[in-house]
């Protein structure tokens, strides 16, 4: 997951996000790089761009065009079988602290948490 990508001397220099910081990695190209929103803002399409896009014809490949058998992809190529799909049941028993004013509710909440030994 990259937050910055630069091309230097025919190689990509990538800042890869790790748990407690980032690594600067040099990788030969072509390279596959996944990115997140940290990389930058999406641009608005310009009118010129929209006009140009309307004229472009997308290239559509069939499995055979990229050298894969139909049995390797889609449902037939799936290695994992779905056994069950379900929605976990939530218990949902929230104790709402009622009081005459928001500030009083805050005070009561602190008392309640203390009684429950939460701090």
């Amino acid at each position: 997951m990259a937050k910055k990508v630069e091309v230097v001397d025919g190689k990509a220099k990538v800042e890869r996000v790790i748990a407690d910081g980032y690594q600067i990695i040099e990788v030969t190209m072509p390279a596959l790089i996944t990115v997140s929103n940290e990389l930058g803002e999406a641009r608005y399409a310009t009118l010129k761009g929209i006009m140009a896009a309307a004229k472009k014809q997308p290239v559509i490949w069939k499995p055979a065009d990229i050298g894969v058998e139909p049995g390797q992809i889609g449902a037939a190529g799936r290695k994992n079988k779905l056994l069950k799909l379900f929605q976990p049941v939530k218990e949902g028993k929230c104790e709402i602290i009622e009081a005459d004013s928001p500030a009083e509710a805050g005070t009561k909440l602190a008392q309640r948490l203390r009684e429950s030994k939460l701090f």
Partner: protein
Amino acid sequence: MAEPKGVMILGESVQGNLAAISGELLGCGRQLADTLKEELICILVGNQLGDAPKNTIAAGADKVYTVEDAMLADYQTDSYLMVMEKVIKDISPRILLMGQTSIGRDLAPRLAFRLGVGLAMDTVELSIDPQAKLLQETRPVYGGNARAIFVSEAFPQIATVRSKAMSPLAPDTSKQGEVIPLKVELDVAKIRTKVLETVKEELAGIKLEDAQAIICGGRGIGSPEGFKQLEELAKVLKGAVGASRPPCDNGWVPDTMQIGLTGKIVAPELYIAVGVSGSSQHLAGCSGSKNVVAINKDAEANIFKEARFGVVGDWKQVLPAFSEKVKELLAG
């Protein structure tokens, strides 16, 4: 390949200390191995592993394989893939578990493809179907709104496991186990990446993942200044401050503070959500918390479904009084 046998986990360690996720994997792997009546195996890859193999046995492993090489000091996709492909082919485990970490996320799909087997990522529950002796892998789908159970019939069955989803065992230093060093020839020409530098960006104070109390601010906080109040409360409770996605996207706080599906996953004793609506993506990062407390002006907010205690009101009025009382109670 030999008959698939045993539950293997890929351990991660830093200077001989086992990563928290690896302890959790060993705890979960121990149960699976006991159900199957097979061994729990750990593979450690790196350079200068130090006490990590010993710690791994204390954390539940029966057998530890180590692969040490100066070239393996940093995680790199190509080198670790070479090692893991060779090790899996030689040892032929029934199950392989990795953490849903930056390493697991990167390595697991490649390894599964190389081996031509299935993979379930970000699992939160694992069990063995006693009849077929197959691993059943539960993972959240549809942004955490539903769960799906998968099974793969090719070996090894590979899963990555979400952090804090499993419990580690208490370390048992008297536990006996075998440490077996392995040698894997690395083909340098096939390693296409090079780590130039590792930069640590530590946040001041207690790490979010380690904090026992977390004050989390959401869109309702409204400004970077609002977060200062949360920080003061966090100091009093000896906890840390986190955020849902909007405060990070708006630049009120750094992205490293984000809790949720695309951020950090936490499971503290006390989680106080302030001005957080409680989207399923956010809850995916905090639903393991023991006690959720919600302060939100919208009584219908989803966060109240997750909370044990709640106050419906404007946090700007609730929080100062709350913080004041907390301070007073702690002082008394």
